[in-house]
């Protein structure tokens, strides 16, 4: 069975989804989904081990060799992402049963798990495949299930947020489809590896340039790169809390993967950075994203909105790393992919716990919560410290590598701006700390006068798993750095 791991990675959650539809009982559906996600996690670990040991894995679906058939192509980069996605999915699912009990009507619970598994399938499928059109198909699977999941939020604004996301997301996907069509027209193939061989001969044509432009813009819409980020804050804020935790940790990472994959592996490094002034464009947009989003975060009264804007800022960091276009820069971006997933996963899960206990995530409702939900709020503080980039947390590791990469490249001003961005993060994290620990419970903004209990174990376990991971990988960085570096180097090597 080991040689079939690549396809099993996607097939396990994929087949689990319709099966889940047959479970009427909420708890049974949850357990089933958990087992499916856990299996996907085990497979991803095995795959990563295999790739690190023996190199690239290629799998021909249908027994037909690429480019006539569809190929699954696993290298260090996507194995890394498969691990991130499946591990965060499983950890978040641990709390799902408890979280949705109060946020989603009971009769929709099994539908929720079906959609969750479909979303997981979509993301894994995007990452594992080596065929450009297959990317589009699984992109739509993950997007459609996302629109539905977000719309399950109890506030009516969830519906509007989902609709806006649908419109923007579909435009993005259609742009990517146009780009794929143009690439196909000039080369005759859809296989990404084959494309990388054939595109150089037609690289100077206007058609390929246009193809590149459309793919980049389409991916940036999905990425929530400033200024195409407008769909994200509302989508994250009004979706059911567990959905936000899942997406904040995974969805944008997949889009960044697509950006890296298309620029490095398909179009090639030299073409990508000369055809369009990507370096300049991305460093400017990245930095703007960091500042605009971090500033916006400071003024939010809804904590989910606050962290959503924070996510947009973090994506800005990743894009800056990407724009440096050196091995070090790409390593920093990949590291941050992993670290940010851990950070935001923990933060949004903790918020889900707060929502579960007090029914609100308005900043004013969090007064004095530091004393009544100590473990949960401590987790938020830890996550916040990680966001700021305090040593001993994963956030510090990412910033460190990013600043190093910037300095190595001689980009002193940008490095300064990065550090300034951290200052902004201190402001918005402090707002939460101040309210939670330094203000008394009671007064306007309270929903009830009853004492609040600590979050149930179903939340605390996954939250603290992620917090401990935050610290562990902040201290022992060997695994994450080694994988990120290997992936980065192989991407540069491939596109010589």
């Amino acid at each position: 069975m080991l040689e079939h791991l690549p396809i099993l990675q996607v097939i396990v959650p994929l087949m689990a989804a319709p099966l889940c539809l047959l479970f009427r009982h909420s708890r049974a559906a949850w357990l089933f989904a958990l087992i499916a996600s856990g299996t996907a996690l085990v497979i991803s670990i095995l795959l990563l081990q295999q790739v690190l040991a023996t190199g690239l894995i290629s799998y021909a679906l249908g027994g037909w060799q690429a480019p006539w058939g569809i190929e699954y192509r696993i290298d260090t980069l996507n194995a890394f992402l498969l691990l991130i996605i499946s591990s965060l999915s499983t950890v978040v699912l641990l709390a799902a049963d408890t979280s949705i009990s109060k946020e989603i009507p009971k009769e929709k619970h099994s539908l929720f798990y079906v959609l969750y598994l479909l979303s997981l399938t979509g993301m894994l499928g995007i990452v594992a495949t080596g065929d450009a059109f297959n990317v589009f198909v699984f992109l739509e699977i993950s997007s459609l299930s996302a629109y539905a999941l977000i719309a399950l939020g109890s506030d009516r604004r969830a519906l509007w947020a989902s609709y806006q996301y649908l419109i923007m997301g579909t435009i993005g996907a259609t742009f990517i489809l146009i780009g794929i069509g143009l690439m196909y027209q000039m080369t005759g193939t859809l296989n990404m590896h084959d494309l990388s061989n054939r595109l150089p001969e037609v690289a100077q044509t206007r058609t390929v340039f246009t193809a590149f432009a459309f793919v980049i813009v389409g991916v940036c819409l999905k990425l929530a790169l400033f200024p195409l980020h407008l769909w994200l804050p509302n989508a994250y804020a009004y979706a059911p809390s567990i959905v936000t935790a899942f997406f904040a940790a995974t969805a944008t990472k997949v889009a960044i993967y697509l950006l890296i994959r298309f620029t490095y592996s398909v179009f090639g490094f030299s073409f990508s950075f000369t055809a369009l002034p990507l370096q300049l464009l991305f460093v400017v947009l990245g930095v703007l994203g960091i500042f605009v989003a971090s500033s916006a975060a400071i003024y939010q009264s809804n904590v989910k909105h606050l962290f959503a804007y924070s996510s947009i800022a973090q994506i800005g960091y990743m894009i800056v790393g990407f724009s440096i276009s050196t091995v070090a820069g790409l390593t920093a971006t990949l590291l941050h992919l992993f670290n940010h997933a851990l950070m935001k996963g923990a933060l949004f899960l903790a918020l889900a716990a707060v929502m579960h206990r007090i029914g609100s995530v308005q900043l004013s409702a969090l007064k004095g919560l530091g004393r009544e939900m100590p473990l949960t709020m401590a987790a938020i503080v830890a996550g916040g410290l990680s966001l700021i980039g305090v040593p001993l947390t994963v956030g510090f590791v990412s910033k460190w590598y990013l600043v190093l990469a910037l300095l190595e490249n001689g980009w002193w001003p940008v490095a300064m701006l990065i550090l300034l961005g951290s200052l902004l993060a201190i402001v918005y994290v402090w707002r939460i700390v101040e309210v939670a620990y330094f203000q008394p419970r009671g007064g306007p903004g309270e929903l009830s006068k009853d004492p609040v209990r600590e979050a149930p174990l179903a939340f605390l376990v996954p939250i603290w798993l992620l917090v401990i991971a935050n610290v562990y990988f902040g201290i022992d960085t060997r695994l994450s750095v080694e994988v990120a570096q290997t992936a980065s180097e192989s991407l540069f090597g491939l596109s010589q």
Partner: protein
Amino acid sequence: MFLGLYNYWIVVVLMMIGFYIVIAHGNLIKKLVGLTIFQTSVFIFYISMAKVNGGTAPIVGDGIEIYSNPLPHVLILTAIVVGIATTALGLALTVRIKEAYGSIEEEEIQKKDNSTC
């Protein structure tokens, strides 16, 4: 050149009409119609690519030498399905939004959201 490419230019115009409707109109259903037109135009683009002069539909028959390319057809069949799936979800959302907000005009919905915040 015009004769060789006019086909694609017409498609681009159609695409842009659809795209314009999506981003300029405020009525939720009109936006979805625009999206459909945009997507369908992309399909026409792919299918035009596939045509070979003097070719027939890609179904093997005696005596036929030239066939049009079946691969874009396959891709578009899938893309049509994706399109209808998106439209169905979009319309379901629109129905729910109408129930919740009492309107399907973008500006009115924004106004209601801003007043509750």
